[in-house]
């Protein structure tokens, strides 16, 4: 599939995926969650960190999930430190301190697991294929440091979704990054 066609399909899939992810996050956290903004674009990997910086202030927690299927992908849920604290507290039903404890990190990772897998489930239904996720990992680091195995110059598709969790004022971002293989019409920037 050409990169342009891939973007179109991905954009179409992202709409129900984002809706499902926000619904699941709402059910899971008990908070009133809504998708505030989305965009889909084909960008050079080198520019991703800059895009993230426009939406999410550092420092941040990144929940990372790898996915293998029709094509490989990586999913990231990004939350600022304070909003990660609020989300973990909502999940645990109790106040949590910074830096996040192992249990709070586990709660945040599970949010990533459930929301990220909701994305994969929608894509799987759309493509009639199976995507298997890797266990989620939480990274706490400057932007651009959470992904492994993404070569400089690689072209990736980025789905950005700004979640607003009302009352709690938790803002985050979901990035779905399918890795376009060589010969897919967009293997390198």
């Amino acid at each position: 599939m050409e990169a342009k066609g891939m973007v179109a399909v991905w954009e179409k899939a992202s709409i129900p995926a984002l809706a499902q992810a926000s619904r699941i996050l709402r059910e899971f956290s008990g908070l009133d969650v809504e998708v505030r903004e989305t965009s889909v674009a084909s960008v050079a990997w080198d520019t991703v960190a800059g895009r993230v910086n426009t939406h999410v202030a550092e420092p941040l927690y990144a929940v990372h999930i790898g996915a293998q299927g029709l094509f490989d992908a990586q999913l990231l849920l990004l939350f600022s430190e304070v909003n990660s604290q609020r989300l973990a507290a909502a999940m645990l039903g109790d106040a949590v301190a910074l830096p996040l404890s192992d249990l709070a990190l586990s709660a945040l990772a599970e949010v990533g697991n459930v929301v990220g897998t909701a994305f994969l489930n929608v894509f799987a239904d759309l493509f009639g294929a199976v995507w298997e996720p890797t266990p989620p990992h939480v990274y706490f680091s400057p932007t651009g440091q959470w992904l492994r195995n993404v070569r400089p110059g690689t072209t990736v598709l980025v789905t950005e979704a700004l979640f607003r969790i009302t009352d709690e004022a938790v803002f985050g971002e979901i990035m779905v990054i399918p890795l376009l293989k060589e010969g897919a019409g967009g293997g390198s920037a």
Partner: protein
Amino acid sequence: MTILVADDAAFMRMRLKKLLEEAGQTVIEAANGQEAIDAYQAHRPSLVLMDITMPDVDGVTATRRICQLDPAARVIIVSALGQQAMVISAIQAGARDFIVKPYQPERVLDAVNKWGA
């Protein structure tokens, strides 16, 4: 009844353990598929609640091995991975039921009552 909860997320094990213990059940835990297989052999629990996405040995593989060890084993999958092909794969591996996360507590307790009886 003794129930084995296998999930790599400590947070999820904590939630399920609290739910099940409040319902009067005894819970043992495993943090990955291999631990689940080992714990099943050691304790022979009445029921297993099994996640799919876990490091080392995944939940479908662990379910298959447990059911090979004990064809009467009762394994319920509790996973966010609700893709149709994955559900079929889990059932073929021997799982009796499939609960998609995030779950309603009543859904878990109903399944426990149904398959643990």
